[in-house]
């Protein structure tokens, strides 16, 4: 009896052990057949669909260009979720050597101290000229005079208009860098002259656009120079620049030429569909949409810079997109491999091809000399505009992004304020409420992180 019991106990233990071993071994990295003696550099990214294909081309190109390193790309889902995965796996064998983190996670990444600034590698590498990279993109990912991450897939918000419709109704197109009233004029003329068949304009309820409007008018939302000279302790959304932006939209809503598509991914898709169908003449969106807007468009596409308030100069918008960061929990050789990959990804030819296949902007100044881009511009001259806007922007604290943790929550609250104001609510009241909620969140976050 006892013996049988003992035997059953042993077998039970074995089964449990087997189950646990089974659970914990599934995470083991799969050995690549071609790895041989190359140093493996695991690369986490969040690009799906066509952009993922283009990214894999970049990775394959790098792997073929040298024999020391092998970059292994791994798709990690959405930008937001990837940030948490990166932070929570740091220091374990599963963590990546190089990863893509989106614009609004920059403060989080810097404060985590989990990364090696790319500046450290650039300083030791005379063959790489950082001056060739677009200044507005560089300054977005630098802090304390150091390049923290390598800007990678980069876009700019631009204004799109239906050039064919403008021509049809004999409306003078807006200038390259339009003011709010330039756009209002075009929108109202389009609405009136089309016999109210075509709405003049829309601006999606999207926090990014509110931030960009404030930036382009030269105002920093967060204090401490948008977080570039210290941890922000508060923001002020009820500032003249943000108010002017919402007042501009209010004015167009009142005159009937504005159509509201709401917020979220479906709103984005619906406004694009509306624009392509000629139901709305003007909208603001990321420059990365340019491919979609030229490929499926029977009408001619017009593009201008992001609009700015009347009676002042545009400050220039900040970039959107993501950068490549190098984890500091990997051996030196692996980190060097990560840097080599980032450097390769930023080389002129690779960036030119990248812009052509994804719509993200080529960041290397020399890319403009590449045949791929010259051909692209010859076929579609408007495609030049986003790149010009990027090149024109003189980086300052205002247009180098908001270095604030908890930007995800901030965006949600900005969108609530936009929604309230679009629905006819008082602009100051909506912005004051959003400011209060964001500041409460900042206070809690700073307390949790021990920032003074």
């Amino acid at each position: 009896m006892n013996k049988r019991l003992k035997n059953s106990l042993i077998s039970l233990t074995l089964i449990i052990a087997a189950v646990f071993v089974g659970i914990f071994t599934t995470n083991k990295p799969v050995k690549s057949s071609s790895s041989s003696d190359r140093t493996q550099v695991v690369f986490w990214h969040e690009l799906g669909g066509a952009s993922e294909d283009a990214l894999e081309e970049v990775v394959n190109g790098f792997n073929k260009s040298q024999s020391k390193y092998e970059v292994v790309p791994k798709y990690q889902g959405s930008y937001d979720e990837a940030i948490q995965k990166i932070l929570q796996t740091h220091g374990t064998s599963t963590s990546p050597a190089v990863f893509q983190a989106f614009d609004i996670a920059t403060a989080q990444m810097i404060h985590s101290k989990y990364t090696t600034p790319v500046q450290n590698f650039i300083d030791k590498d005379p063959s790489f000229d950082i001056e060739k990279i677009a200044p507005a993109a560089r300054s977005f990912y630098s802090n304390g005079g150091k390049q923290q991450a390598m800007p990678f897939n980069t876009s700019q918000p631009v204004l799109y208009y239906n050039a064919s419709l403008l021509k049809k109704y004999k409306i003078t197109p807006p200038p390259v860098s339009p003011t709010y009233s330039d756009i209002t004029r075009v929108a109202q003329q389009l609405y009136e002259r089309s016999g109210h068949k075509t709405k003049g304009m829309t601006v999606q309820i999207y926090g990014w656009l509110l931030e960009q409007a404030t930036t382009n008018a030269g105002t920093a939302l967060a204090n401490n120079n948008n977080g570039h000279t210290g941890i922000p302790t508060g923001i002020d959304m009820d500032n003249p620049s943000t108010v002017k932006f919402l007042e501009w939209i209010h004015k167009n809503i009142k005159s009937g030429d504005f159509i509201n598509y709401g917020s979220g991914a479906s709103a984005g898709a619906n406004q694009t569909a509306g624009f392509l169908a000629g139901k709305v003449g003007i909208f603001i969106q990321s420059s990365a949409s340019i491919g979609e807007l030229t490929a499926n468009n029977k009408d001619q596409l017009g593009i201008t810079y992001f609009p700015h308030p009347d009676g002042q100069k545009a400050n220039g918008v900040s970039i959107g997109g993501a950068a490549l960061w190098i984890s500091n929990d990997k051996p030196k050789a692996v980190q060097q491999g990560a840097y080599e990959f980032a450097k390769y990804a930023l080389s002129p030819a690779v960036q030119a091809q990248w812009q052509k296949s994804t719509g993200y902007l080529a960041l290397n100044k020399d890319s403009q000399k590449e045949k791929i881009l010259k051909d692209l511009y010859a076929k579609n001259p408007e495609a030049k505009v986003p790149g010009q806007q990027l090149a024109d922007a003189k980086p300052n604290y205002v247009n180098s992004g908001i270095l604030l943790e908890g930007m995800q929550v901030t965006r949600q609250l900005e969108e609530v304020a936009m929604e309230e104001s679009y629905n006819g609510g008082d602009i100051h009241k909506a912005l004051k409420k959003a400011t209060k909620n964001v500041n409460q969140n900042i206070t809690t976050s700073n307390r949790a992180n021990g920032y003074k």
Partner: protein
Amino acid sequence: MLKSTTPTVVGSKTEAKTKHRTFSLNAKDKYYAALFLGPSLLILSVFVFYPMLRTLYISMFLTNTLGKTTVFNGLGNYTDLLGSPEYIASLGSTLVYVFAVTVLTVGIGLLLANLASKRLPGIGIFRTLYSVTMGVSVSVAAIFWLFIFNPSTGFFALLSNLLGLPVINWLTDPTMAMWAVIITTVWMNLGFTFLILLGAISAVPTTLYEAASIEGASERRQFFKITVPMISPTLFFVSTITLIEGFKSFGLIDLITKGGPTNSTNMLVYRIYKDAFYSGNYAQASSEAIILTVIIAFFTFLQFKFLEKRVNY
């Protein structure tokens, strides 16, 4: 837990102990108890008890950028949540959703089960059809319904166009998005509910119906006076399960609305996920998880307290 199992084990083994039903264990019994309970206790404590206690612990702190607990905040996270209009709105929409899903699932399930319990030729086909959603995965169901809800090419849009009615924006209008999620969930749950209720109805003795027919009771009367009371334990079980599943609903929401538009379908569980894995606010997410646990426990308790009393034959 250990003690409640002892009398039977003890009783069969030693004569002396059975007399005063003592709860003390001899060495062999302890051995057995450890043998049988050990594995499940081990797995439960690693995968259930530890995470539960850890969640409770985190909910009393603030967490920093790295997700680590830093400042003790007592009940601060809870008071912040309960004072936030967004959270209360989320709670409200969850209650609406759970209530609608439970009532509709059990109601329609009962109706279908009652129809399918009739002995008619070819009824097997209908039984299979009604229970088929049990075999459909959440992602397939979500994609299937997304096609149906599509405002330009979906089935509902085509139907509206055919009838000359305005097209409903199922997924962009806040109220309709809630209905879209409810309809999809009910559809998903129906197969299981139907099957369980059909089994219960089939188990009701036919003699009861025969007697009622002789007495001249109508079918309707038979349904309410015989079928419903006889299957009430199953109805109770099914509604409890549906209610709890409703509170825990995640997959369909993630795939169909992602909590939008304007947070109208941002149910409690989805909110926890977003706060933790999108915003990285683990402290707040943990507090939300604890509040959800309390709510589910409360509703389960209510159901046991009031519904179970009315469960009788």
